[in-house]
């Protein structure tokens, strides 16, 4: 097959690639390298003319409690943003997978949160979390669990958890979509049987369905990990980065650079965030290349 591909002139592909590649290099690839360089400059000096600052920004990071808190929060995001949506998304996908009348409507409705921006979602959830009249505490009080009706967004201990819950709520439908694609290759009866057939359902699920879904799982997990490391919108909208206890790397970078005009320090945070993400980017790219060679 490949031998029959177009190959009139060696320059032809580059004629098509010239514009897209140029734009991508200028707006995406070069900035990555620039950020690396900026991480070694002083405060806002890159705006006026970069002043080399050595490893000072990284040394400051090592002793910055806020930075380590952001790392810790990011780890929490990662664990729960993968740990809950992936199994739950699989379960929902298995439920909606069969071609029962109406299952498409269910899928559509369930997917709706994914089409909304975090500004909208964050706004609604801020009311739900409101300590006095929010839906969550109203509900908890109505069933006698007054002790659990806490300051969800006002208390350092619950803040990050409350934000992650919103992220999880929006991510489950996305993972469902990924698994629905994966389930296309699995017989419907098999899926339904392992959901409600009492006898040996776990065996069937683990030995038959899970292995068939391995490719979808790899994608769901790596995408969720990368998204968890990118989480910014929810934190920004629901805390306006003023609640520093909930800060993650992405929001700490934003506030350092764009609210405190410390671009050198912000770049250093971005570099750390990038290096952590890079591991998972490589996993994803490796997966893509593997699929290519199997083609």
């Amino acid at each position: 097959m490949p031998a029959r591909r177009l190959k009139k002139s060696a320059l032809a592909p580059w004629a098509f690639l010239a514009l897209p590649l140029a734009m991508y290099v200028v707006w995406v690839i070069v900035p990555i390298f620039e950020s690396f360089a900026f991480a070694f400059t002083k405060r806002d000096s890159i705006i006026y003319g970069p002043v080399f600052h050595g490893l000072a920004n990284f040394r400051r990071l090592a002793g910055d409690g806020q930075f380590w808190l952001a790392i810790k929060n990011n780890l929490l995001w990662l664990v729960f943003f993968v740990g809950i949506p992936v199994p739950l998304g699989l379960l929902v996908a298995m439920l909606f997978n069969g071609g029962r009348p109406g299952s498409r409507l269910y899928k559509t409705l369930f997917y709706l949160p994914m089409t909304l921006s975090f500004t909208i979602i964050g706004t609604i959830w801020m009311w739900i979390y409101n300590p006095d009249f929010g839906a969550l505490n109203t509900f908890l009080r109505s069933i006698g669990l007054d002790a659990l009706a806490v300051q969800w967004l006002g208390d350092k201990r619950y803040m990050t958890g409350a934000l992650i819950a919103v992220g999880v709520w929006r991510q489950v439908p996305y993972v469902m979509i990924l698994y629905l694609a994966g389930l296309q290759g699995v017989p419907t009866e098999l899926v339904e049987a392992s959901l409600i057939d009492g006898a040996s359902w776990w065996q069937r699920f683990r030995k038959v369905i899970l292995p068939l879904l391995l490719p979808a799982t790899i994608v769901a997990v790596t995408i969720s990990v990368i998204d968890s490391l990118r989480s910014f919108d929810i934190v920004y909208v629901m805390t306006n980065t003023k609640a520093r206890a909930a800060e993650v790397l992405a929001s700490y970078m934003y506030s350092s650079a764009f609210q405190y005009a410390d671009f050198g320090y912000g770049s250093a945070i971005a570099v750390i965030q990038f290096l952590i993400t890079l591991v998972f980017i490589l996993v994803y790219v490796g997966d893509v290349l593997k699929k290519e060679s199997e083609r």
Partner: protein
Amino acid sequence: MTKVASSRWRAFRAAAFYVTATLLVAVWLLPLVIGVFTSLKSMDEIMANPVMWKPPKALRFENFGEAWNRAGMGRYIVNTFIVTIPSVAGALAVSSLAAFALAFYRFRLNKAVLVLFVAGMLVPFQMLMIPVFRMSNGLGIDDSFGGLILFHISFQLGFCTFFLRNFMKQIPYSQIEAPRIDGASDFTIYARIIMPLALPSIAALAVLEFTWIWNDLLWSLVLLRSDAIKTVTLGLANMQGEFITTYNLTAAGSILAAIAPVAVFLAFQRYFIEGLTMGADKG
């Protein structure tokens, strides 16, 4: 198993499906129902009876008019269309060129260019923010629709190229062979043969990109300053601060902001869901 037992079993399974699915969707959408209810209530009702999941006693549609005019949502929504439509069209047009090259030509750096596009789309935005902000300043296109559109087009090239290339790879080569023998140029083959065949994937991609760019907050935050050109996500974030005690207006504004992406999703949901699975499945 007797016939009666197995048909009962089947009925039970169907009932189990509908009960579980309905409950699940109802619970999952509760926050959105709360948003819709709040947008239709008066502030008096919200204060007197603060149970959020209760339907409004009287429907106050004026909230939407007020959000549109007084809170400026109308202008933010127009601005968002001005940013989103050219960004989506540009990203699709430019990336289709790259996708064509990567799908149909054999050359040494083919895989390397593909990896560049794929890896770039996964990079944390924070890694690009300062350089892009600085470059936009330097070029004098900061705080303008043009600067934001240019960035969106460029950044989305990664995903769009990957997505379209995977689709084009599945087009049989025979579609190209005949016109080639007839002496058609490579560009003619791209424009007249491949693009029409790739239309379903372009439609799916357009729906995906529309919701992504419409919902973008971060890049509007970094690249736009003037209130007159702010997009809807940014406008809503402002509204939260300004109309902090009028939840009904903020809710109405949120719903206005959601109409376009939700309408696009519902109208093209088949493309949308296929699009997401296609893109994800192949990579």
